[in-house]
């Protein structure tokens, strides 16, 4: 039961307090039920709780730290343990026709593709299927994509579409024609027009 979804939080507290003072107060049924639940919980808090006799053992703290590290091992492992490999280039992902591979890394690949519905070029960022099969990885990829899709800023590339085809999560972004950072740095080195220091970055 979550009346919070419908009621403003402070209004909810106000109604709970009112009901606490006057059991006949006219409040929503959900507030009445929540009040009963909270009173039960409050009563439980009054009872003494014997401590966990094993909590002070040094092995207990070690066990907790080891449990915490599981998530770090998995998340860092996803990025580090997988070498970029020559995954076969798909021909289509849903309504996107793959034109060519633009780049590839440990996490996945970026393709130039054509949105066959809208007839425009897009960059398709995909996650490797074997990584996507790991627990939580696909959800994280899609969650980040949804977060990025919610942002609107001149300096952030917008997300056109988020999807999953044949177990491969992907997102579609505008295909920005330009050059790689390597090429840009080489070009600027040759002309001597701008370095990271002259641009105001210390690089540390």
């Amino acid at each position: 039961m979550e009346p919070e979804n419908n009621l403003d939080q402070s209004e909810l507290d106000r109604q709970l307090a009112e009901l606490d003072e006057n059991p006949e107060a006219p409040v929503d049924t959900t507030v009445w039920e929540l009040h009963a639940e909270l009173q039960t919980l409050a009563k439980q808090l009054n009872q003494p709780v014997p401590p966990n006799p094993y909590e002070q053992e040094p092995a207990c703290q070690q066990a907790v730290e080891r449990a915490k590290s599981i998530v770090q091992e998995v998340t860092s492992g996803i990025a580090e343990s997988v070498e970029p490999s020559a995954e076969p280039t798909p021909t289509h992902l849903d309504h996107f026709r793959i034109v060519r591979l633009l780049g590839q890394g440990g996490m996945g690949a970026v393709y130039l593709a054509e949105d066959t519905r809208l007839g425009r070029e897009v960059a398709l960022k995909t996650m490797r299927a074997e990584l996507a099969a790991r627990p939580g990885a696909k959800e994280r990829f899609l969650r980040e994509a949804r977060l990025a899709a919610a942002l609107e800023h001149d300096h952030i590339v917008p997300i056109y579409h988020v999807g999953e085809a044949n177990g491969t999560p992907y997102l579609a972004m505008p295909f920005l024609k330009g050059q790689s950072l390597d090429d840009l740095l080489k070009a600027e080195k040759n002309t001597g027009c701008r370095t990271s220091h002259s641009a105001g970055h210390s690089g540390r």
Partner: protein
Amino acid sequence: MQRACALEPTAWERLCTLYGPIVYGWCRRYGLQHSDAADCCQEVFQSVFKNLGQFRQDGGVFHSWLGTITLNQVRLHFRKAKPAPSLIDGQQLQDWLEAIPDSDPDLVHSRQLVVRRTLDLIQGDFNAQTWLIFVRTTLHNESCGEVAVSLGLTPNAVRQARFRVIRRLQQELQGLV
């Protein structure tokens, strides 16, 4: 809980802080020695990590689910540590079987511990006065009227502050116990 299911590192850490000592305590109660209990605890959390998404889909109470996972993992430990004796000696086999735990861990006490620990974890989210009101009215059983007078507030303001904390505690515990 939902954030932990999405494998957000901070939510996972919180889940481990909350439940690590509980699982370790269960393992010790089942008779595992310190280092075996720590190993078993890690295996339990690995299993939780792998299956949390499915658990969320299936629904249920996390606390009980964790108790079942722990019991299964402890049984595995027992079997690995001491292989089954020959079937020829019936008494030995009987002793071996009896040494393997077969009942769920003590969920009542551990639930109380989780509630208390959750309370500690949310304390930092409230200002000192709100927390004081909660402690005095709920943990020390002082009336809202008394607390209101001593703090120069209206009884209604005291009640609202009290419910703010209890409601938050209830939200944190949803799906857990």
